[in-house]
């Protein structure tokens, strides 16, 4: 990069900037997926630029830096830095990050602002007119072609929408040196996230709630674009006090989160009117009852955090003490949304609603408060030239002071039924403490040995399994047989145990089923063995080899359901080789694989659908495997030194998740069979090439080409052949006429080619 003198020699500056043309061609089921996180418009494009200038006056060493990338695109970055060396520095930045989930989704409703979607009344009126067997003694049909056709016709005329969030981040930072020991910091960040993302809503319709047949219910699954209007501000101010032997920092941080939309409301496309109970004898028997849906979006709130941290050298044993003390709180007081949108559920027919006066359906708030306190201490000591000791202790307290509220019940299952009964909210708090003692001993220049003991405790309030302890032990060896090679080998052992079970805390409508599953959730009885290794070799100046690997085994000796066992291994290597001066070759391979045995709940017997849950004979086991690997190759060098350089690389990554359910007791007393699940497979190919041609001292031409091919096969998506999908519970007698209207945001593949030519000017 050239450097020029400016302003009669009082300043030095350099600059480089790019502009060019780019073109892309993308094909596939949903080509937009190629630009999920980037913007590559066809045609003219600004590339990267930077400008730097500094004063040549040693008494006034001012400087200015401007830089940017992908200007005027949705992923642009802009920045400025200016300052007086040794005195102050000011940085300003602006960054846009797109997140494109999918394009071309068809949605029946129209957004009218403030989180409200409105549907053409003709649609729910029409769809409501189709036979609805809820409340009758007749099992619903597995499919209803007329219903599907009608809905498909409506979708043809529906507007196309994109699921996309744009994030725009602005930052400012000022550092001012007050004197040789003290400096002041001020940071501000403003972040806007706006757009839509996928949300789901499920309503249930229970049928035949009798003693022998209580779980036949159908579902309405409805996907819609959730409006995102998040605004975050973070302000930090601090003082840094420095001496030759250490540093002390005092920092205050304020965070504010505002959600521009409190609630998401929509019209149920399947029902035009709210519906009363299907059977007077059973108040739980509602069918697709609500004509309107509501979802309470994340509430706004704010935090204040103060931190005192630092590091200081201590005389004995060349020690260094580092610490962090941090305390603060988070507050949230958004107004509650209504209990229900369903006009059937009113105080008149549901006596006692609301129980808490302040919680009128359209009023009240939580007045939530969480206090945080963090302590962290780390003492590194060197008792001798050969021995290093490090002791660490950490304390993280999440103290939830949010009041407990008592509710008379709730509108459950997607606003389709009122579930009466007092429900008290919980405000879970936890304290996590851990400590480690590490020792490393350098036996000689070839060998170092290290050992580690550690402990961790989780204390959880308002949980039925309040205490969990984990103890760890590790040892390792570093071998440097020659100057150009280093091998690290480590082994770690850990054991996790849960404390006494507190049945009093198994309250409310928790889905935790009791001691057994609570212990399982906290990984009680887990024994972990981990072996890790890494190798760094540079046998000659032209070869660099890195390799790493690990083996992990997790065993669970007390859990009956859920994860039973997990084994994992990882191996990877990266090699750089310079066979001759103009060429550098790189190659890499890595593979990661985890296998686990999962113990699921039972498949209800097809022969006795009303039978009890959780019979051992019916338990379904699943062998799961998550495998992924990556191959990479690259070459770079020059064809004409200083004039024509190139850079090519290709990369192939694939991953597969397989799940093989089986019932070890099949055929059992109830005939619960495990049904196969297809595999999830992901593959990404990419190839990149670049040619850099230095036309003159100031001008250069850059040719870039990118190829990407991506495909994913996911049974959870592949089952959705149509946007309207009849869904079935497993087992032949459990066919249900569930209705789904999904946004079809899935994607399976794309193939992309992108090329660009840019002209770069620099001085």
């Amino acid at each position, binding site marked *: 990069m050239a450097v020029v003198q400016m302003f009669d020699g009082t300043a030095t500056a350099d600059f480089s900037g790019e502009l060019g043309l780019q073109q892309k061609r993308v094909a596939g089921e949903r080509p937009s997926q190629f630009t999920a996180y980037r913007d590559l418009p066809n045609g003219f494009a600004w590339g990267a630029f930077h400008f730097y200038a500094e004063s040549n006056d040693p008494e006034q060493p001012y400087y200015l830096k401007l830089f940017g990338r992908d200007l005027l695109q949705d992923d642009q970055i802009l920045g400025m830095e200016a300052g007086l060396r040794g005195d102050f520095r000011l940085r300003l930045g602006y960054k846009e990050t797109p997140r494109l989930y999918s394009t071309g989704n068809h949605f029946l409703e129209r957004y009218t602002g403030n989180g409200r979607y409105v549907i053409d009344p003709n649609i729910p009126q029409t769809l409501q007119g189709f036979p609805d067997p809820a409340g009758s003694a007749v099992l619903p049909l597995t499919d209803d072609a007329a219903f599907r056709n009608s809905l498909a016709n409506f979708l043809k005329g529906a507007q196309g929408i994109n699921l996309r969030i744009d994030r725009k981040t602005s930052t400012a930072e000022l550092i001012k040196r007050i004197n040789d020991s003290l400096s002041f910091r001020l940071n501000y960040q403003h972040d806007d996230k706006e757009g839509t993302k996928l949300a789901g809503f499920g309503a249930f319709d229970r049928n035949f709630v009798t003693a022998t047949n209580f779980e036949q219910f159908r579902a309405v699954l409805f996907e819609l674009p959730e409006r995102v209007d998040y605004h975050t501000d973070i302000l930090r101010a601090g003082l840094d006090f420095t001496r030759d032997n250490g540093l002390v920092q005092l920092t205050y941080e304020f965070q504010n989160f505002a959600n521009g939309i409190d609630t998401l409301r929509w019209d149920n496309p399947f029902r035009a009117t709210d519906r009363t109970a299907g059977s007077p004898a059973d108040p739980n028997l509602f069918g697709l009852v609500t004509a309107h849906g509501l979802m*309470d979006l994340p509430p706004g709130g704010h935090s204040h955090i103060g931190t005192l941290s630092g590091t200081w050298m201590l005389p004995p044993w060349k020690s260094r003490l580092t610490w962090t003390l941090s305390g603060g709180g988070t507050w949230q007081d958004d107004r509650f949304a209504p209990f229900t949108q369903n006009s059937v559920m009113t105080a008149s027919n549901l006596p006692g609603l609301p129980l808490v006066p302040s919680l009128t359906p359209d009023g009240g708030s939580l007045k939530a408060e969480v206090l945080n306190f963090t302590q962290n201490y780390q003492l590194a000591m060197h008792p001798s030239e050969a021995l290093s000791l490090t002791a660490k202790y950490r304390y993280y307290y999440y103290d939830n002071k949010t009041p407990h509220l008592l509710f008379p019940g709730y509108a459950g299952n997607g606003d389709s039924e009122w579930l009466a009964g007092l429900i008290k909210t919980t405000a879970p708090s936890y304290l996590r403490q851990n400590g480690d003692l590490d020792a490393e001993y350098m036996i000689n220049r070839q060998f170092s040995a290290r050992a580690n003991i550690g402990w961790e405790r989780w204390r959880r309030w308002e949980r039925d399994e309040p205490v969990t302890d984990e103890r760890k032990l590790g040892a390792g060896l570093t071998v440097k047989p020659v100057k150009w090679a280093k091998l690290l080998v480590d082994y770690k052992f850990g054991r996790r145990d849960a404390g006494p079970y507190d049945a009093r805390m198994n309250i409310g409508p928790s889905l935790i089923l009791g001691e057994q599953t609570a212990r399982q959730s906290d990984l009680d009885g887990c024994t972990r063995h981990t072996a890790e290794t890494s190798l760094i070799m540079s046998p000659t100046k032209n070869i660099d080899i890195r390799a790493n690997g690990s083996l992990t085994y997790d065993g669970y000796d007390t859990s009956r359901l859920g994860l039973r066992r997990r084994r994992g291994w990882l191996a990877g290597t990266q090699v750089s080789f310079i066979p001759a001066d103009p060429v550098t070759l790189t190659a890499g391979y890595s593979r990661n694989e985890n296998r686990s045995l999962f113990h*699921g709940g039972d498949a209800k017997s097809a022969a006795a659908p009303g039978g009890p849950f959780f019979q051992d004979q019916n338990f379904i086991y699943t062998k799961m495997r998550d495998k992924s690997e990556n191959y990479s190759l690259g070459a770079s060098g020059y064809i004409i030194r200083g004039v024509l350089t190139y850079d090519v690389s290709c990369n192939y990554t694939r991953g597969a998740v397989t799940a093989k359910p089986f019932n070890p007791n099949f055929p059992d007393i109830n005939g619960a069979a495990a049904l196969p699940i297809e595999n999830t497979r992901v593959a990404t190919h990419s190839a990149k090439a670049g040619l850099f041609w230095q036309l003159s001292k100031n001008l250069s031409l850059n040719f870039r080409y990118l190829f990407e091919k991506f495909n994913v096969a996911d049974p959870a998506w592949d*089952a959705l052949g149509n946007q309207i999908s009849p869904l079935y519970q497993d087992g032949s007698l459990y066919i249900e006429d569930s209705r789904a209207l999904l946004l079809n945001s899935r994607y399976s593949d794309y193939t992309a080619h992108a090329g660009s030519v840019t002209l770069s000017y620099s001085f």
Partner: protein
Amino acid sequence: MFRPGFIAFLVAALFTVSYGGLRASAEEPVGGDMYAGATECKNCHEARFEVFDHGIHGTSGYFDKNFIGCESCHGPGVMHVVAGGDKTKIIGPSTWTQAQATGFCLNCHIKTPRLKYWEGSIHQRAGLMCHDCHKVSFSRATLDKLLFKGTSQADACLRCHTEIRIALSQRSRHPLRDSSRPDAEGNMVCTDCHNPHGTVADHLVDANSINDKCWQCHMEKKMPVLWEHAPVKENCLNCHTPHGSSNKSLLNQPESFLCFSCHPQGHVGSVNNRWAVSRGCLNCHSMIHGSNNPSGVMLGQ
């Protein structure tokens, strides 16, 4: 399971061995004590000197009165000059032990806040030295102000963390794939979340906890709500794997299996199950991170 006696024995053994005379041989200064001055360096190393002189380190003299150019790190160079450039007469940090090599950098950077947890950090314990990841000389105007080796910051990290290279090309991922090219997904860098020099939190995450880091960008999940999903506020990594996943939404297991790990009331019996298609359990339990709705106890609204 670890009795206090055993721990005491282990500590005592380490101390005994330490004071037993086994010690590494300290490297003696090789360059004498006379400084040659930057001009002498430039005479033979002109190209490198130019880069250094206009780089971040070349201008660091404004912050340190004792700045003496190349010899600030390479030590006195007169003997090296007199010997006609004999490499054995000048300090080369790459040939030193970790403590000696990093010691040079820490002489100045002990005041750098991001380095305060270096000693005892996982990278320090793994024997890494500053120049394993950083260049000393680099253009002052570069975007890559942290002097990383390689084409980008991620490139420096992924040389050793090969498993992350897999993750970044997975189906769901954070956008930090190859920021060196304008056509890449590169609006994040590793240090947006990590401080490789040591941190308070696990996994070198640069915050008081994993969640505190995630909340900096996903603050909508930070606020306490009426109906909490307890694992959410404890650790995002209970459900997510942040670099990339074969599953949707950076989940560390397929949706339903993930949920059934703690809620094993049911099972995913087949692909036609309504709890398996599309978003699995989240088809209905949309507010899985917590709901502030009075009727949101099942995290559905």
